[in-house]
Structure formats: C-alpha cells, structure tokens
C-alpha cells in the first residue's frame, strides 16, 4: 500500500528528494547530450526534447487518475485506457452532434466519466469479488475488452478525428509547438494543481489520504471508506475524461486507442511513485523524453523499448518510484 501522505511530505522538497531530483535531472541532461552526439543535429534533438515534454505532459495527465486509483485503492486498473477511449468517443460524438468546440465537451465528458467510474467501482470492484490482485486485474481487463468492443460495435472501426478550430503553431527557438499540444500540456499542469489542492487542502482530501495511509484506521475515526474509495475511483476516471478531451484533437480516435496509453501510463505511475500526483506529472515528462530520445539512440526500434528498459530498471532499483518513499 502506498503512502500518499508520505508522498505529500516528500513533495515538500525534503533533502533526499532534492538529491534524487538533481540526480534524475543530471541523467536527463547526460541523455540529451548523448543524443546530441548521436544525431549530430541540434535542431532535431531540441525538437525531440520539446515534443517529448509536450507529449509527456499528456502522459502525466493520463497517469494522474491512474496513480490516484493505484495509490488509494491499490487497484491495478487496466481499464483506464479503455475509459480514456470512451471519453474520446463521447467528445467526438458531441462535437459531431452539436458542433461544439472540442474543449467545451469537457463539461459533458468529465461528469460522464465520473459517473462511469463510480458505477464501475460500485458494481464491479468493491466487495469480495474484487479483492485479490488477479481478480482486479481480470475484471479491469475484461472491462477494457468490453468497453473497446462496445465502442467498436457502436461506432465502427473507422478511425475518427476531432478537429481543433483555430489551432495555431509557433516556433520556440526553432522547435515547432502546436497550440493543441500546448493546451494539453497546460491542462495537465492545471489539473495536477487542482488534484494537489483537493488532496492537500480539503476535508475530503484529508479523508482520501487517511484511507490511503490506513484504511482501518480511517474507518475507526469515522471515515466512510467505501464511499471514499468509490469517489476516488470516480475522480481518477474523471481525470481520464479530462485527459481524453484535451488529447482527442491530437490523435486519431479508435476504440483500441487506450491500449497504447495504458501501458505508458502504468510506467509513469510506477516511475512517479504510486499515489503521487506530482510524481505522475514529472514521470510523464520523463517518459515523454525517453520515448523521443529512444528513437534517436536506436533508430528502427520502437520508442516503447526504451520506456520498458527504464521501467524495469526503476522497478528493480526503486520500486517505490523515483519520488516515492521506501515503505
């Protein structure tokens, strides 16, 4: 069980954390210099770094909901990606049906995903059937298959696109930045801040942290643990909803689109330390960078390979994550 309180204590920039952050930063710097030597083009590496960070913000955003669920409920939610896809189709459907600006579909997608999350938790994951790791894994896997194929049956397999009206682009010291990606990046930071505030400064946040740290203890002091679990799961999926709306104009929407993000999001969660929202954002940026740099180091290899290498190294050496505390 992770310790959200510890993570928040860690977020107060304790000594060892600073040291680890510096070490991580140093490694990233070395990796970038190495990429520069490998590719020989400053522009390419610079563009890779910019793209990596922008994409990484998106990964962080998706991983935030997952890390919340992982950290508080200890559920490995393999349906997170599928829920993301559901939200994208909601966004797509609303844009198609009403001609609304894609970002305005947030007001529909986020509450919808919140409700779906609550229903999924109450209906499928709470209680004894969802107790063990393998059962959770299979229920969420089954759910993701069900959602993906439900979308397939309903919307068909043809890829869908969501156009972003008034999209723009500008050059940042030579690197191209498009508006859509910048908005998504900003949205990630904003939502991260909201979550941070929710967990740190509200009574409900205190309850969540108490449940995460010690469910039985929280129960004793009068916290309704099941309710907190359901709400946390719902908030986690609502985050996926927000991420989906921001990401929809950047990708091609297909029912199985969630899979690719799901794997990456899990890596980000472990990297950032489970339950650690700020860690998820930083982890997302790191993974975004790793992906881009992998393609520079190992041409012809999938960017995922580098991600998995980093993942296994982190799992083996610091399973509590770069920014988590040893339990």
């Amino acid at each position: 069980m992770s310790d959200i309180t510890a993570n928040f204590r860690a977020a107060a920039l304790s000594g060892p954390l600073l040291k680890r952050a510096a070490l991580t930063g140093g490694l990233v710097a070395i990796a970038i210099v190495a990429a520069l030597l490998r590719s020989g083009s400053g522009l390419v590496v610079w563009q890779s770094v910019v793209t990596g960070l922008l994409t990484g913000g998106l990964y962080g955003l998706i991983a935030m909901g997952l890390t919340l669920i992982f950290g508080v409920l200890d559920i490995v939610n393999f349906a997170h990606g599928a829920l993301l896809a559901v939200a994208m189709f909601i966004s797509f459907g609303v844009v198609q049906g009403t001609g609304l600006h894609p970002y305005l579909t947030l007001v529909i997608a986020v509450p919808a995903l919140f409700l779906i999350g609550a229903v999924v938790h109450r209906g499928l994951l709470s209680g004894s059937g969802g107790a063990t790791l393998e059962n959770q894994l299979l229920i969420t896997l089954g759910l993701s298959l069900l959602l993906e194929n439900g979308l397939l049956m309903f919307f068909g397999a043809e890829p869908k696109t969501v156009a972003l009206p008034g999209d723009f682009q500008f050059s940042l010291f030579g690197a191209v930045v498009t508006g859509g990606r910048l908005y998504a990046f900003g949205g990630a930071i904003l939502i991260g801040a909201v979550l941070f505030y929710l967990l740190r400064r509200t009574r409900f946040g205190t309850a969540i942290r108490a449940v995460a740290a010690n469910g039985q203890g929280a129960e004793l002091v009068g916290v309704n643990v099941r309710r907190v679990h359901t709400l946390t799961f719902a908030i986690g999926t609502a985050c996926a909803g927000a991420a989906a709306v921001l990401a929809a104009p950047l990708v091609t929407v297909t029912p199985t689109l969630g899979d690719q993000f799901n794997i990456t999001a899990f890596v980000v969660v472990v990297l950032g330390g489970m339950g650690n929202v700020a860690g998820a954002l930083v982890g997302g940026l790191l993974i975004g960078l790793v992906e881009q740099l992998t393609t520079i180091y190992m041409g012809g290899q999938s960017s995922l390979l580098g991600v998995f290498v980093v993942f296994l190294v982190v799992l083996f050496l610091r399973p509590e994550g770069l920014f988590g505390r040893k339990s």
Partner: protein
Amino acid sequence: MSARKLVAGLGACAALLAATAGCGGSAPSGAAGAAAGRDSGPVRIGALHPVSGANAVDGQQMRRGAQMAVDAINAAGGITSLGGRKVKLETGDTQGKAEVGQSEAQRLISEGSVGLVGTYQSAVSTNVAVVAERNRVPFVMDVTASDAIFAHGYKYAFRVQPGSAAIAGAAARYLKEVSEKAGKPVKKVAFLHEQTDFGAGAAEAFAKAAKKLGIQVGPNISYDAVTASDLTAQITQVKASGADVLAVAGYYRDGLLAAKAINAVKPNLNAVWGVSDGAFDQPKFVSDVGALGERYFSTNYHYDAKNPETVKLRAEYQKRYGAPMRTGAVLAYDAVQVIAQGVERAASTDPKKVRAAIAASQVRPLTVGTGPIAFAANGDNKNALPVLMQVQNGQIKQVYPQDKAESQPNYSVTWRP
C-alpha cells in the same frame, strides 16, 4: 458465496458448453462431404476478410466487392462450361487474426469451396496460403502486400495486386521521371516508414530501386505505428537532412500524424511521396486532414479510374451500399473473377484442375494493369501495375503513367513557392 450464485454461474457455463457442442454438430462434414459439395449445387468460392476487428471497414468493402463479382457472373448465366451452374460466395471472418483466418479457411475448404480469395492482411494471408497449399485449393489474394509468401514455392498461391517490392520500385521510377519532367530532378529522398515488414520492406525495396536510378536515399527514419502519437521530431529530422523529397510508407492512423507534423515543420521539400502508403490515396484522408494533404503523391495499387467498367461497378456499389467503393473491394472483385474464369476454363470443380486453369488464365482486370491478369511462376500477377496518384483540389487523381492519368502531376508542395 451463496448456493444460488453458484448454480447460476455453473448453469451459464453449462449452457455455453451445450451451445458450443450444438454448433459443432450442425457444422458440415468433412473431406468426403467437400467433394460431394463441389459436384452438385452452386460452385462455391470462399471469401476470407476481416469483417470484424480494427480493419472491419475494409473487410466489409472487400466482402461486398466479392459478392458483386458473384452476382455479375450469375447474372451473365453462371458457369457456362458447367451447364450454367450458379456461383455462390461462402464468407468467413478472419477477425484480422492469423489463427482465425486459418481455421476459417479450413472450414470453407471443408464446405466445398473450389478456391479462396482474401485476406487484406499479410500475416493472415501467410497462414491461409499454407492451408490452401496443403488442401490443394487455389488461393487468389486480393490485397496482400508481403512478398515473402511467394518465396516458398507454393503452387496454389496467386496474387492480383502488385507486391510491395513492385510498388516501391515503381515509386522510385515514377519519382525520377515525374521530377525530371517538372524540371526539379530529385536529389535526395528521406524515407519515413513504420517499422514492421510492411513499411520497412517498402523502404528497403525503394532504396534498392532508387540506387539503380542514381537517387540518394537517406535518412531512413522508422517509427512504431502502434504507439506513435507525434511525428514532429521525425519530420524535423527530415528537415535537418536537407532532403528534397519525403517518401512515406505507413498505415492510415500514422499517415494523419505525418501530415500534421509535415504541416507543422514545413521541411524544404519538392514533394511528399507515398509508397504503398495506407493513407495518402484514401478519400477519407482528404476529408480528415483537409488542406494539409493537398498535392501529396501516392504510388499504390488502384482501381482503374479510366476503365468504364470500373466506373460502372463503382457507381453500382455506391448505389447499393451508400459508400464509395475502395480499391480493395475492386481487387476482391477481380480475384473472384479469376477463380470463376478458372472454373470456366477447367470446366470442372476439381480444385487441382481449377488451379491449372488459373495459372494459365488471362483475366481482364478492373484495377490498373499493363494487361490482363496473368500469373508468373511464383503466383504473382505479371501485369499488375502500380499507379501514381495525387491529391488535387481535394480529389484523388491518377496522374502517372501517362496512359492511366486523369490529370497531370503537380510536382510541388503547398507551403513552398
């Protein structure tokens, strides 16, 4: 765990099992039955396509294309050499999975199909080709890019579309000719491709052909189509390389990403050149990316837009199914014609005789070719011809070679004078 729940759960399972057994029981019976099935009733042709799964739209298109061929044959009096026996299309769904394709192929053969058409995906076709070979039933591939299948010396595998290497070779040749005609002879081609055998194979074949023509190819940039969500860095690499042409071989989804990235980076190119690319010659691509795709070239197999019969067929399809008929469906139409005319020539439903007839056949295609469909010793269509297309004013036009051109190629990009 209550007793009721247990009973409910077990009951559900039992019902499933019983249903499964029931289905098995109603399935047709094997090899002996197959021969009997071929000798009487309609002549069966098996069509294997991915009508569910990620490629379901194309799979359905192709199944319909095959059905239209069967309808046309029957409308014209069936197989005359067999006394006007009708033709029937037996369909199977590969779900885009190789092992499902294999068991479906076996089923269609057991049910008495004289030949198979399919399957859209190379991996599935590879599996089905094995089944066909072992059962000695001809398998005429409509869409299948991979050339590897034709290196095994199979006797029962045929293909209508031009192979991956043929398209890449033609792409290099067309590039040289078109660029020279435009007065901007190509110097250096950057190749962006997805990393599996489809894209990598196209890149390799293109580089080989280009080298012979004296075109420099590099850098060679690959990406993972499954996970890629942004190709800006890759296109930046193209820009940094100073290449004057960008060749692309990818699938549909990543084709959109490439178009967006090209628009963002605006490298100093004279042309964007698709090589059997899955996006650039799709009408949907034009509607999805809008102006971004304008003037993109694509070398690929294609329905023959200048053949009046093709035009008629596509109009009929549009009328029946309310959607434009894609090239894959026209290829499926051709493939069914190949088998039906093989049966006609052989005057037999014995798959071995049909195979011999197909190997010697000459079938007029509705897809682009230099002549009738005729097979080389390895089963590949000798006369398949890749064609160069270009997005012009939001329309996909055949632009090269000259005798297949609907309009002239415009060798330029929109963002440069």
